[in-house]
């Protein structure tokens, strides 16, 4: 071992020890817990008992209609958040990419939702969609668009859409700034030469800007997919999965199973199934990026 690598080890060890002890170890314990039935109780070592290991938690998940419902709803949710979020962010990024007075302050404004605590984002949109004092109902009826107040969170479909709008709002800054950075990397020369060749705005966007953006965007979307499928705070702060499980997402059901029903083993198995999605998204992103950087 050279002197350098000994020093490197010394510098990295404290951080790594913390991560190993409080991240890798718990993750491993959860893995073993997912093969134990029900509540493993206070004795954590029971999780490692090979005699009582069983696949029943994973098998149970296939017959759990609420888990399956939450799976589809998480996909719909993530689809809305990423689709709508991407289009809005692309629009914002294109506007912010234009040289104009006031652009600096607009960039600052767009960053703000990033900082808002997700749980506060939930309570805020809860007030927006509040059935009786809700600002949205007041605004819509004062504009003459609705006759009677809509109880947004009473209808499963409306509630799911409403909450995905709330989460989309929080996702906008990251996506918009990311796309903006991508736009700024598009070479000015190429755009100008396309312009000289007679390409109009749409053609320039379609044939010059878009191809340069695609690699950035694909990585971004898979990254956001990880966060969107793991959403929890906004749901907890508003509907907690109601009405009639209409806004139940995977993370919320895992929380309920684990901490309300105390099915630690089953909760652990579900958490690992959710983790599997995360890993799939990350692998696709990794594969795509290593392929496009070659």
């Amino acid at each position: 071992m050279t002197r350098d690598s000994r020093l490197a080890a010394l510098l990295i060890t404290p951080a790594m020890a913390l991560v190993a002890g409080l991240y890798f170890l718990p993750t491993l314990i959860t893995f073993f817990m997912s093969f134990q039935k029900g509540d493993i109780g206070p004795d954590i070592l029971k999780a490692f008992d090979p005699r009582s290991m069983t696949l029943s938690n994973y098998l149970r998940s296939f017959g759990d209609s609420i888990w399956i419902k939450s799976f589809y709803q998480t996909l719909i949710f993530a689809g809305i958040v990423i689709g709508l979020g991407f289009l809005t962010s692309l629009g914002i990024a294109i506007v912010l990419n234009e040289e104009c007075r006031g652009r600096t302050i607009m960039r600052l404004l767009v960053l703000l939702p990033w900082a808002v605590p997700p749980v506060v984002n939930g309570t805020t949109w809860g007030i927006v969609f509040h059935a009786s004092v809700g600002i949205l109902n007041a605004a819509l009826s004062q504009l003459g668009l609705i006759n009677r107040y809509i109880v947004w969170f009473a209808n499963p479909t409306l509630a799911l859409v409403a909450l995905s709008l709330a989460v989309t709002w929080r996702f906008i800054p990251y996506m918009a700034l990311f796309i903006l950075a991508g736009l700024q990397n598009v070479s000015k020369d190429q755009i100008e030469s396309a312009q000289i060749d007679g390409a109009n705005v749409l053609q320039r966007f379609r044939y010059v800007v878009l191809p340069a953006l695609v690699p950035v965007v694909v990585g971004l979307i898979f990254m956001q997919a990880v966060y969107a499928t793991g959403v929890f705070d906004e749901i907890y702060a508003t509907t907690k999965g109601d009405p009639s499980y209409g806004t139940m997402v995977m993370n919320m059901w895992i929380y309920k199973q684990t901490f309300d029903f105390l099915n630690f083993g089953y909760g652990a198995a579900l958490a690992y199934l959710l983790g599997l999605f995360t890993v799939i998204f990350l692998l696709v992103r990794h594969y795509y990026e290593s392929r496009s950087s070659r």
Partner: protein
Amino acid sequence: MRRVLRLLAIYTSYAAIIVIIMFPIYTQFLASVIPRVDLWSRPLSFIPWSFTIKNYIEILSPTHEIPIRAALFNSAVVASGTTIVCLCLGSLAAYGFARLRFSRKQLVLSSFLAVYMLPAMLFLIPLFIIMRELHLLDTYASLIIPYSVWMLPFVTVILKAFFESVPGDIEDAALTDGCSRIQTIWRVILPLSAPGLVAAAIYTFIGAWNEFLTPLVLTSRLVMITTALGLYTTTYQVEVGHLAAAGFLATVPVIVLTIVFQKYIVKGIMEGSVKG
């Protein structure tokens, strides 16, 4: 003419962006500063003509059902503590990754980065049991330690990027002048990477301030500002004005930090995501 049209298009879009971004923030502000009667009366006035800070006074009073004042203090302590731990350990690790050569560096770094990707549900139960065995439940440490674990990878990645941009020559000069490695880090690398340190600090502080699920699971008597908000939502009859005021107080510190340190934050997000 063309120029006028372009400006018109841009400023119309600006107006739309302002509405999208400000609508929920303003809604919360409005609900927190108008009297209860006004909130329920229709038509609703969207400008708070009868401005009141009654809601704020009520939620900050020690007799309020949810201890907002203590929660704000607790969140500030935990977020600051996490920031300090992350910067200390993170800058050492980042220097190790940035400057020193060792085998399997990439593997160590990627395994490190895996941390902030997987769902938190995966490790919360064992973490609860570990904290209980260490008799740390309901202490500041029970939150500062796990937060640091989850923020460290990102902090390390940001700082590594900044350390790598410090010219090697300057460092070599310091080393030949007789500085030790640690002195070099302290006297040369860190001052030159100040923007990176600020970015990492702000990112960590905001992340720790905003964390909700971990204190929800790990603490019962120690209330953070985020779990305080959660408590409102489990109360049967919640006063909307109180909820709005508490939400606004929870948002102000992070919004102020964001406005003041905007440049560093954007740079930090980009470094972290591109390299990660």
